[in-house]
C-alpha cells in the first residue's frame, strides 16, 4: 500500500517550466498586480500619468520581448508546461500586436479617463490583465489553458466596459456583454467537454494526433464539440449570427475600450479559433470549413448592409467591424478539402502542404494586424472628437453623424487622418486595408472559393458607402455654413493640434503611419504573417 505521498508523486509529475517562454505573460501580469498593489496600499502615491506610463512601458516591453524571442528563436514552436502552452511565430506575432494595442489604448485612454470618471490605476491594471489573457489565448495549446485565457480576457473586459459607471449606457453595455459572454463561455466549456469525450484529450496537438492516427466509427460527438467551440469563439469575434451584442456594447463602452475590444479582443478570439481549427481539428477540415464559409458570408453581408443604415458613427464602425471579421473568416475558410485529405495521407509534415494551407492563415493574420491598427486609430479619432466638443445637449447621440459635419474645417489634420483610416477600411489601394483584402482574396481564389471572394468584394463596396458618408460629412462645406456664428472665429484661430491631448494625437499618428507604411510597403508584414502562419502547423 503506497503512501499518499508516493501516490501523488507517481501520478503527478510536475511539468518542467521554460520560464523564458512565459516572459511576456509574466511582464503583463506582474505589472497589473503591481499597479493594483500600489493603488490599494498607497492610493495617493500614484499620480494619473504614472499608471499610463507604466501601462505603456509594460505594453512596449511585452511587444519588445516577444519580438526578441521571435528573432532569437525563429518561428519554430517551443512548448512548455507539458505542452499546454506553446510559443511560436504565430503566438509571438499576436503578442507583439497585443503589446502595441495596449500602448495605443493607454495613450488614447489617458486623456479620456477623467471624462469617463475612470480611476487610472484600475483601468491600467484591468487593461494589462485582459492583455495577459489575450496573450495566453494566442499561445494556448490546450483547451483548458485556452479557456483560462479567454476568461481572463473577458472578465477584465466586463469591468473595463463598466468602468465608466457614471453613464447608464456604459453599465448597460457591460451587463449585456457580461450576460452574453457568460453564455458563450458556457458553450465553450461544454464544447471542451464533448471534444474531450470524443478524443480523450484537451491538448490540441494530442487531439490532432488522435484524429489523424485512429480510425473511428463516427465523429458526431467530436463535431458537436467543435460546433460548440465555434459558438463560443464566434461570440468573441462577433461573427454573425453571434454578433447581437456588438453594436450596443461598442456604442456604450468608452471609446478607447471599444477600440481595444474591436482590435485586440477580436484578434485574440481569432488566434484561438485558428489554433483550434488548424491545429486540433484540421482533420475535420471538410466538416468545419462550410461552417466558416457560412459565418463569413453572413458576417460580410450583415455587417456591410447594417453599417450603411447607421446614423451613429460608432455604431457604424461596430457593424463594419463585423464585416471585417467576415473578411478574416474568408481567410480562415481558405482551406482546400483535397489538401486535408493529402495531409491525412502523409501526416507527419510535408512542407509543401503546410505552405498551401498557410496562405489562408497568413492572410487572416495579416488582416488582423492591419485591421487592428485601423480600428484602434478610428476609435481614437472618435475619442478625440467627443473629447474636444463635449457631450451634445440636443439629445442626439454622442457620435451622431451630424457632429462630424465640417470637421475638415475645424480640424483639417484630424479629419484627414480619419479619412485615411476610413478609406483604408474601405480598401482603397496604398493603404494597409487594401493589401489585407487583396491577401484574403488571393488565399480564397488560390483555394478555388471564387464565390465567397466575389461576395466579399461586393460587400466591401457596400460598406465603402458607409465610410464615404462619414468622409463626405467631414468635408461638407455646408455644415460650416450652418454654424455661421462661430465659423469666422474658427477660421481666424484654427485650432490645429493644440487643444487635442498629445497622447491621443500620438496614437492616431501611429495608426495612420502603420496603415500607410504597410499599405505602400507590405513586404515585411507579409513575410512576418507567412512565417507566423507556417509555424502553427504540426
Amino acid at each position, binding site marked *: 500500500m503506497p503512501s499518499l505521498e508516493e501516490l501523488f508523486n507517481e501520478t503527478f509529475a510536475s511539468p518542467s517550466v521554460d520560464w523564458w517562454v512565459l516572459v511576456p505573460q509574466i511582464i503583463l501580469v506582474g505589472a497589473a498586480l503591481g499597479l493594483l498593489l500600489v493603488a490599494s496600499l498607497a492610493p495617493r502615491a500614484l499620480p494619473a500619468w504614472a499608471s499610463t506610463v507604466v501601462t505603456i512601458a509594460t505594453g512596449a516591453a511585452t511587444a519588445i520581448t516577444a519580438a526578441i524571442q521571435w528573432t532569437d528563436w525563429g518561428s519554430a514552436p517551443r512548448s512548455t508546461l507539458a505542452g499546454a502552452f506553446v510559443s511560436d511565430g504565430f503566438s509571438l506575432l499576436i503578442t507583439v500586436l497585443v503589446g502595441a494595442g495596449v500602448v495605443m489604448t493607454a495613450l488614447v485612454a489617458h486623456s479620456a479617463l477623467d471624462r469617463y470618471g475612470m480611476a487610472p490605476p484600475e483601468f491600467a491594471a484591468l487593461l494589462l490583465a485582459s492583455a495577459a489573457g489575450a496573450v495566453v489565448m494566442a499561445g494556448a495549446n490546450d483547451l483548458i489553458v485556452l479557456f483560462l485565457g479567454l476568461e481572463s480576457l473577458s472578465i477584465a473586459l466586463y469591468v473595463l466596459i463598466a468602468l465608466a459607471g457614471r453613464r447608464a449606457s456604459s453599465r448597460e453595455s457591460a451587463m449585456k456583454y457580461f450576460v452574453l459572454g457568460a453564455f458563450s463561455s458556457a458553450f465553450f466549456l461544454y464544447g471542451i467537454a464533448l471534444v474531450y469525450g470524443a478524443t480523450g484529450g484537451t491538448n490540441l496537438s494530442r487531439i490532432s494526433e488522435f484524429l489523424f492516427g485512429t480510425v473511428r466509427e463516427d465523429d458526431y460527438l467530436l463535431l458537436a464539440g467543435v460546433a460548440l467551440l465555434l459558438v463560443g469563439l464566434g461570440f468573441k469575434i462577433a461573427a454573425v449570427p453571434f454578433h447581437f451584442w456588438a453594436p450596443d456594447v461598442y456604442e456604450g463602452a468608452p471609446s478607447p475600450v471599444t477600440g481595444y475590444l474591436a482590435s485586440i479582443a477580436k484578434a485574440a478570439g481569432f488566434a484561438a479559433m485558428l489554433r483550434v481549427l488548424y491545429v486540433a481539428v484540421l482533420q475535420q477540415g471538410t466538416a468545419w470549413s462550410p461552417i466558416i464559409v457560412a459565418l463569413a458570408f453572413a458576417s460580410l453581408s450583415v455587417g456591410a448592409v447594417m453599417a450603411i443604415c447607421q446614423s451613429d458613427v460608432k455604431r457604424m464602425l461596430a457593424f463594419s467591424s463585423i464585416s471585417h471579421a467576415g473578411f478574416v473568416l474568408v481567410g480562415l475558410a481558405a482551406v482546400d478539402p483535397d489538401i486535408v485529405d493529402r495531409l491525412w495521407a502523409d501526416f507527419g509534415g510535408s512542407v509543401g502542404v503546410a505552405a498551401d494551407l498557410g496562405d489562408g492563415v497568413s492572410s487572416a493574420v495579416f488582416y488582423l494586424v492591419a485591421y487592428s491598427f485601423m480600428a484602434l486609430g478610428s476609435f481614437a479619432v472618435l475619442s478625440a472628437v467627443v473629447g474636444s466638443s463635449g457631450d451634445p445637449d440636443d439629445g442626439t447621440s454622442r457620435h451622431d453623424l451630424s457632429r462630424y459635419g465640417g470637421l475638415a474645417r475645424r480640424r483639417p489634420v484630424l479629419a484627414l487622418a480619419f479619412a485615411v483610416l476610413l478609406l483604408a477600411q474601405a480598401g482603397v489601394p496604398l493603404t494597409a486595408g487594401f493589401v489585407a483584402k*487583396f491577401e484574403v482574396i488571393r488565399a480564397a481564389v488560390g483555394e478555388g472559393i471564387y464565390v465567397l471572394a*466575389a461576395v466579399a468584394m461586393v460587400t*466591401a463596396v457596400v460598406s465603402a458607402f458607409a465610410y464615404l458618408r462619414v468622409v463626405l460629412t467631414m*468635408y461638407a462645406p455646408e455644415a460650416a455654413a450652418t454654424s455661421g456664428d462661430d465659423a469666422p472665429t474658427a477660421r481666424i484661430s484654427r485650432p490645429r493640434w493644440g487643444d487635442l491631448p498629445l497622447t491621443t494625437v500620438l496614437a492616431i499618428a501611429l495608426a495612420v503611419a502603420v496603415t500607410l507604411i504597410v499599405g505602400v510597403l507590405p513586404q515585411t508584414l507579409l513575410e512576418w504573417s507567412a512565417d507566423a502562419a507556417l509555424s502553427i502547423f504540426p
Partner: protein
Amino acid sequence: MSAGALLAASGSGADFPILNALIFVPAVGALVVALLPRNRPDLARPVGALFAAIAGALALAMAWQFDTSAAAAQLANGDAAFQFGSEVSWIPALGISWKVGIDGISLWLVVLTSVIVPIVLAGVDPHHDPKPYTAWMLLLQAGSVGAFVALDLFLFFVMFEVVLVPMYLLIAGWGYEGRRYAATKFFIYTMAGSALLLVAIVATAVLGSPESGITFDLVTLAEGQRLATNAARLCFVAFAIAFLVKVPVVPLHTWLPDAHTEAPTAGSVVLAAVLLKLGTYGLLRFGLYLFPEASDWAAPVLVTVGVVGVIWGAITAAMQRDLKRLVAYSSVAHMGFIVLGIFAFTAEAIGGGVIQMVNHGISTGALFLLVGMLYERRRTRQIDELAGIQSAAPVYAGVFTLIMLSSVGVPGLNGFVGEFLILIGSFETRRWWTVIAATGVILAALYLLWAYQRVFHGPPAAADRQTADLRKGELATLAPFVIAAVALGVYPKPLLNATEPAADTLLEHLVEHSDFELPDPADPVIVDAGDGADSHDGDDH
C-alpha cells in the same frame, strides 16, 4: 520575354526613368502644395501648375524620343514592344513589381494626361480652398499616368482605384449643387465595377502564372496564355465589366451625366479627357492583350454594346436641357465608337480607337471648359435660358464652333480622323454594326448644331447681351486645345505613326492566340460592294 526583352526595348529611353518621373513629379508636387504655408493660399495653384507643367514637358520630350521604328522592328518578333521601361521589385513575396513601360497605345494617353492637367490647373479657378484642390488634381495626374504606364496587374489596379479618391473629393468638394450625390454615385459605381476586377486579377495571376512562381507581370501572363478557356472567359468578363463601367457603355453609364454635371469644370475636363480613357485603355491592354481568345468570344456583345452607346448617347444628348449634361451624353456616344473600334479587330479600327481616345480628350475637354466659362458668366447652363450669345461674345462663339465641329467629326479637324478610321476598319469585319454606328455621326451633328443654334443664335435677352467675351487668360487656356484640334486634323501622322505598329502587334497577338482570322484584303467587302454597284448600274440601263 518580360524583364530581358523589356530592358532591350527600353534602349531608346536612355537611363532616365522618365515614366516614373511622370508619376512622381506630380505626386511630389501634391506634397509640396500640401505643405505650403497656411496663410499663402494664392501660391498653391502656381506651384501646382509648375509641377504639373514639368511633368507635361517631360511627357512631350518623351513623345519626341519615342521610337516608332523600334516599335515597328519589334513587330517582326511578334512581341509587344514597351519602351522607356523600368522594373523595381515591390512585393517580392507575391511576385509584384513596380513595372512600367509604354507602347504606341499608351504613349499619347500619357502625353494627353500630362499636358491637360497643367492647363486646367493654370486656367480654371476653383473659387475656394485652392490648396487641397491643387493637391488632389496633382494626385489625379499621378494616378492616371500610373494606370496608363503600369505593366503589372497589381500596380495597375492600385492606380486604377487610387484615381477614384482625388476625383471623388474634387467632385464632392468643389462641385455644384448635387455634388454629394454625384460624387458618391461615381465612387460606388466604379468601385462596384472593379470589385470583381480584383478577384479576376488574382485569379488570372494564380491560374496563369508560370511554374516558377506567382507573378502579376502583364507581359508574362499575356504571352504565356496559361489560363483554361473558360477560366479566361470568366476573368475577361470581370475585367470587361470594370472597364465598361468606366467607359461607360449604355446600361452602366448613369453615373457619368451626374458626375460630369456636378463636377467642377477642371474635374469634368479631366474626367472626360483622362478617366474615361482608363476604361477603353483597359479594354485594350488588359482585355484584348491579356485575354485574346475571350475577347474574340465576347466581341459580338461588346461591339453591340458600343453601337448601342453611340445611338443611345446621341439621342439622349439631343434631349438634354442642360448644356453640360448634353456634352456628358455626347461623351457616351463618342466612347461607344471607341468600344466598337477596339472590338472590330482590324488595325485601322484599333488605331482609330486609340486616336479617337486622344481626340475625344481634346474636343470634349475643351467643350467642358467652354461650358464652364459660360456658367461663370451666366450662372446657368440651361439651354432655354440662353440665346444669341454669338452677337455678345463672338470670339467665344467662334472657339465653341470650332471645337463643336471637331467633336462632330468634320473633316479637317481632329475628330474626323479617329471616327473615320474606326468606321473604315469596322466595316471590314462588322458591317451592319458600322452602318448603324455611322448614323451616330449624323446624330452628333444634329444634337450639337441644334444646341448651338438655340444658345448662340436667335434674339438675345438683356442678360445675353451683357455676356462678356473671352478674356486673354481664357483664350490662352483654350489655345492649346484649338491648336491641337486643327493640327491633328490636318496632320495626324504623329499619332498614326505611333499607334499603327502597336495595333498591328496587338492583332498579331490576337490571331496567334485565338480563332480569329484577319479578313483577307483581297476579299469580300470591297468586291461585294462593287458587285452590288455593278448590278445596280446594270438595272439602270
